[in-house]
């Protein structure tokens, strides 16, 4: 009865009540809209946070370029070219400056070389292999002369192309303007030859036919070794170009470096690169979605952190060796290379730099670490790419921390930090802050580039929406409070006489509260409900609007496999708000306004009830 009377009285001021309803509906709509948008932001932000990685690459830039000349026998003159000079190697330590917050600190990563003679590394027809253009042979010259295009007969092939045996070839110190080493007829010499990429214009057809047009260049026993600081360790043994093979030569000390070279040459085609890293996404191929795990899973952050012996293997290698997820693979690691990304020496087309496997003394290195790794994932590449942003041929990926043996004595190459070897990860959205701090360091020969999959654009979008949602939220709340306060004044304070009369008729305080509250709150309920519905409709419209503004999806999904899809899905779901999600926030927002209304009303009602009715009722004034 009290409720009925309360409602009855509410609806007997229809204009006031309707205005109250409308204003409340508007504020509830704003509030629910703001709530929905901020909720969407929250969801999107956390969903995207996991999909985006902000990775930086570091590259030491040249300090100057210098002109260098190299004798070219083919053109019979110096060949000049410009060469970039880098000066002293800059250590990654300079990036450990005050105020930076790394998820993965910059590291000039080495990659390792595994010697695996039992693996099929190049199935099917092989285009070109390291061994094919680097050979170790014994020759006898056809005349006594310096090696200024000296015709020789190959008398023995110690390593490399066996077809060379008994062939007549041109041997030329191609890069030496004044060749002085003389070979004598009747004697046999051992030498390492690089198959000439230079055609020999047949200067003297007396020795061979026009078929043998390639020229071979002898290369020294050169072997390189570095320490952890990147300093070259030189051996004191002579770096020989040729040696005469005499009776008992192979038992002599002079023969040792040649024998080691032979051993090395025969290992060349059984090498594959193993990349130790702290997170798959630090490898730009994965970060840029050119490579992705297709079978099994990625190595987890825990596995990376704990140095678990797990690995990712490339699809081709897995296929030709029948490797499956869950299999174990023993990786005998023999060398560490700090000079370049694996793709420099291990190319998809078979080319690439020759690989040095000998220490400063010219001895073939021995395996420094040999452990079984579980294959957890098999990856593939959208596009075979062995650049700095790609991966080496047959590259296996392992956690950096899983290699516990020291490779200090197995470092075969060292070089400046570059984008293929040095990367790091910072929290998403931290680029600006980072670069500001970096600029203060005043180091100008390092170039830092960031790759964030378009997170910055997204972040701006989300921030815009955050501001918008806060405005709506605040606007909605403030308006709701004002509207509630105004109408509580009208419906409660101005009705204090009514409370007094009710009290004088013997209504308990609780009944008086019910009498004031039920009518008011039913309007609040209706207004809020209507506003919430409108808010939901507006959310839909706003989301539609936002969708059109989104540019980052392009950036995010551009060219790639794997995670790109995930991103696309995330984007798609981000645009869609399911009705139940909408209802959830609408109900939550509505309840909030109801509570607000109830709270404000109670403050006013308490005021009404504080006075004894005598104060109100006595008095002659109408």
């Amino acid at each position, binding site marked *: 009865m009290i409720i009925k009377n309360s409602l009855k009285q509410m609806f007997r001021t229809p204009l006031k009540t309707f205005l109250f309803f409308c204003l409340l509906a508007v504020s509830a709509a704003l509030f629910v809209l703001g709530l929905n948008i901020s909720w969407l932001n929250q969801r999107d932000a956390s969903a995207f946070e996991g999909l985006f990685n902000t990775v930086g690459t570091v590259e030491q830039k040249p300090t100057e370029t210098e002109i260098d000349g190299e004798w070219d026998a083919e053109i019979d003159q110096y060949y000049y070219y410009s060469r970039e000079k880098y000066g002293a190697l800059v250590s990654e330590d300079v990036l450990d400056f005050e105020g930076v917050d790394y998820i993965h600190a910059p590291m000039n990563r080495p990659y390792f070389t595994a010697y695996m003679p039992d693996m099929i590394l190049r199935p099917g027809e092989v285009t070109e292999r390291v061994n094919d253009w680097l050979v170790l042979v014994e020759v006898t010259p056809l005349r006594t002369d310096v090696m200024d295009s000296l015709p020789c007969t190959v008398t023995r092939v110690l390593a490399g192309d066996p077809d060379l045996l008994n062939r007549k070839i041109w041997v030329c110190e191609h890069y030496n303007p004044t060749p002085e080493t003389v070979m004598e007829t009747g004697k046999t010499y051992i030498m390492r030859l690089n198959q000439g990429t230079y055609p020999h214009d047949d200067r003297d057809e007396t020795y061979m036919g026009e078929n043998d047009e390639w020229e071979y260049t002898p290369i020294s026993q050169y072997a390189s070794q570095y320490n952890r600081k990147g300093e070259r360790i030189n051996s004191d043994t002579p770096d020989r170009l040729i040696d005469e093979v005499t009776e008992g030569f192979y038992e002599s000390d002079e023969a040792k470096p040649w024998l080691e070279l032979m051993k090395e040459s025969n290992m060349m085609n059984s090498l594959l690169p193993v990349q130790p890293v702290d997170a798959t996404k630090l490898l730009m191929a994965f970060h840029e979605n050119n490579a992705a795990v297709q079978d099994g899973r990625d190595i987890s952050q825990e596995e990376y952190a704990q140095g678990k012996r797990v690995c990712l293997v490339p699809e081709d290698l897995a296929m030709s060796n029948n490797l499956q997820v869950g299999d174990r693979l023993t990786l005998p690691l023999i060398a560490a290379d700090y000079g370049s990304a694996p793709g420099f020496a291990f190319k998809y087309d078979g080319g690439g730099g020759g690989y040095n496997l000998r220490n400063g003394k010219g001895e073939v290195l021995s395996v420094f670490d040999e452990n079984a790794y579980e294959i957890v994932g098999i990856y593939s590449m959208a596009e075979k790419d062995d650049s700095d942003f790609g991966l080496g041929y047959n590259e296996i990926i392992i956690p950096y921390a899983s290699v516990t043996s020291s490779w200090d004595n197995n470092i075969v190459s060292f070089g400046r930090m570059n984008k293929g070897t040095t990367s790091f990860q910072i929290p998403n959205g931290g680029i600006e802050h980072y670069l500001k701090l970096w600029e203060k360091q005043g180091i100008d020969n390092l170039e830092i580039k960031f790759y964030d999959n378009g997170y910055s654009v997204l972040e701006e979008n989300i921030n815009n929406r955050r501001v918008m949602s806060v405005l709506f939220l605040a606007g909605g709340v403030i308006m709701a409070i004002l509207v509630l306060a105004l109408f509580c004044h009208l419906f409660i304070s101005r009705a204090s006489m009514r409370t007094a009369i009710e*009290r004088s008729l013997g209504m308990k305080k609780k009944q008086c509260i019910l009498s004031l509250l039920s009518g008011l709150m039913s309007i609040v309920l209706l207004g809020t409900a209507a506003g919430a519905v409108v808010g939901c409709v507006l959310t839909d419209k706003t989301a539609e609007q936002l969708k059109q503004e989104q540019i980052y999806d392009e950036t995010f999904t551009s060219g790639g496999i794997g995670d790109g899809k995930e991103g696309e899905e995330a984007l798609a779901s981000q645009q869609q708000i399911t009705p139940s999600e909408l209802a959830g926030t609408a109900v939550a927002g509505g309840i909030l306004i109801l509570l607000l209304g109830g709270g404000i009303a109670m403050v006013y009602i308490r005021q009404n009830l504080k006075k*004894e009715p005598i104060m109100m*009722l006595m008095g002659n004034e109408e």
Partner: protein
Amino acid sequence: MDKMVVEQVSYSYISKYQTILALREVNCSFESGRFYAITGESGSGKSTLLSLLAGLDLPKEGKIYLNGEDLSKMDRDIYRRDIAAVVYQAFHLFPLLNALENVMYPLELKGMPKARAAARAKKCIGQVGLPEKIHGQFPKMMSGGEQQRVAIARAMAAGGKLLFADEPTGNLDTENEENVVAILERLAHEEGYMVVVVTHNPGIAARADVEYRMRDGQIVEEQKRGGGQ
């Protein structure tokens, strides 16, 4: 048979700025079946005394007893709802309820079914001499006299046997005044109500069984006319 005794009652209105002493050590008593008048100059404390009798507040000092029971120890909500009824000088009808709804209000509050409450309310409205067409009218549309009579009807309808009225005829013409006084007299003398009326009107005062004359918050004179049994 109810008896109210007012014993050494003082009352003051306390506001932020001042304290107004409205009653000073008032002593008097009231019985069922009698018609009382409280007279005196404006501001002498008549309405205040009436309000205390109606239980709208408690005396600051002194006591009011109903049949020997201290009013301050009773449930005043029940006292107001079931025992005492008041007619105010300013009527104090619910502005957003029509005449019938106003009169039905205390009945429904007691839990009386709607139909019965309406029947009884209509009867009371008839008793104060108002036509049926008034039922649907809101206080704003009624004259002062009509409002006053609806207020009396509401007090009567409530059914408490103690009826307190503050200038109930102040806004009525002589004919209606006579009607109302007749009703009040009848309620006292025939239906056993205790009727206490604050009035300026010497004519009404003359018809009371007992008249209390007040000045400066005190009863200065008590006149019994012996009309009651």
